[in-house]
């Protein structure tokens, strides 16, 4: 069966049966299916789906709702630096899926050095969840051949601050990089 709308074949089933077993919607200027649904209820989109709301996955409760995904960049601000050498530049990236935030950061040193004491990194891209604080992620040398062993980080609740424990190796390297995951407020 084929349904013709406004002179354009845009909605079709794959069967002559009265029961619709599968549906496909074609783009008006293309014979390629833009949306298809097969007999097993699998829906396929040929391109992106834009939603202003969220999507429920695996259930219909509020705990199943995913309504925020975002990627971007941020600039770590070392208000206290435990590095033995000055920092020449910092940069970072983030990905947020629901409340889960993962940040990456890079701190390039003016010359080789290591972290001899605690560092305080401000300007996390999202405020941390109020009811949890603790160790998160790890940082280390930006160069695998540098053998620089870093340590972990720490975030507290209701904060945009990441604390970095001092490194456990004094092997020199020119940059340090970390990846940390936390819950957003």
């Amino acid at each position: 069966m084929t349904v013709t709308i406004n002179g354009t074949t845009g909605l079709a089933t794959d069967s002559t049966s009265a029961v619709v077993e599968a549906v496909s919607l074609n783009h008006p200027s293309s014979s390629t299916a833009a949306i298809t649904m097969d007999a097993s209820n699998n829906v396929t989109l040929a391109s992106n789906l834009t939603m202003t709301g969220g999507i429920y996955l695996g259930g219909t409760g509020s705990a199943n709702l995913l309504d925020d995904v975002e990627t971007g960049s941020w600039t770590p601000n070392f208000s206290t630096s435990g590095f033995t050498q000055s920092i020449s530049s910092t940069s970072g990236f983030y990905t947020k899926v629901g409340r889960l935030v993962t940040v990456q950061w890079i701190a390039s040193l003016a010359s080789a050095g290591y972290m001899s004491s605690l560092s305080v990194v401000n300007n996390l891209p999202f405020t941390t969840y109020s009811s949890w604080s603790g160790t998160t992620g790890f940082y280390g040398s930006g160069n695998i051949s540098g053998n620089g062993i870093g340590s972990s980080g720490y975030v507290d609740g209701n904060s945009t601050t990441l604390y970095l424990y001092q490194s456990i190796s004094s092997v020199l390297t020119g940059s340090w990089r970390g990846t940390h995951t936390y819950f957003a407020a």
Partner: protein
Amino acid sequence: MALEKVISEDKIEIVGPYKMVQVRTKTAVMEDGVELSSSFHRHTIAPGADVSGESAEVQAIAAAVHTAEVIAAYQAHVAAQEV
């Protein structure tokens, strides 16, 4: 076919008891008014932070929500966390 880079603070949020100000800056590449691509950069402003480099809108928001009481409470919170 004019290409244009448009930078805007497209989302400003106030989060949590210490009124953290979260600012999202969007950089969009536009062609004849149609967005071709975009990217985000985020920064946050804690109570008591220097806002002199912020936009007038963000400065006004920070001034409104970062009261002396909020700043004092946040500083006490930070002091309790640091070792």
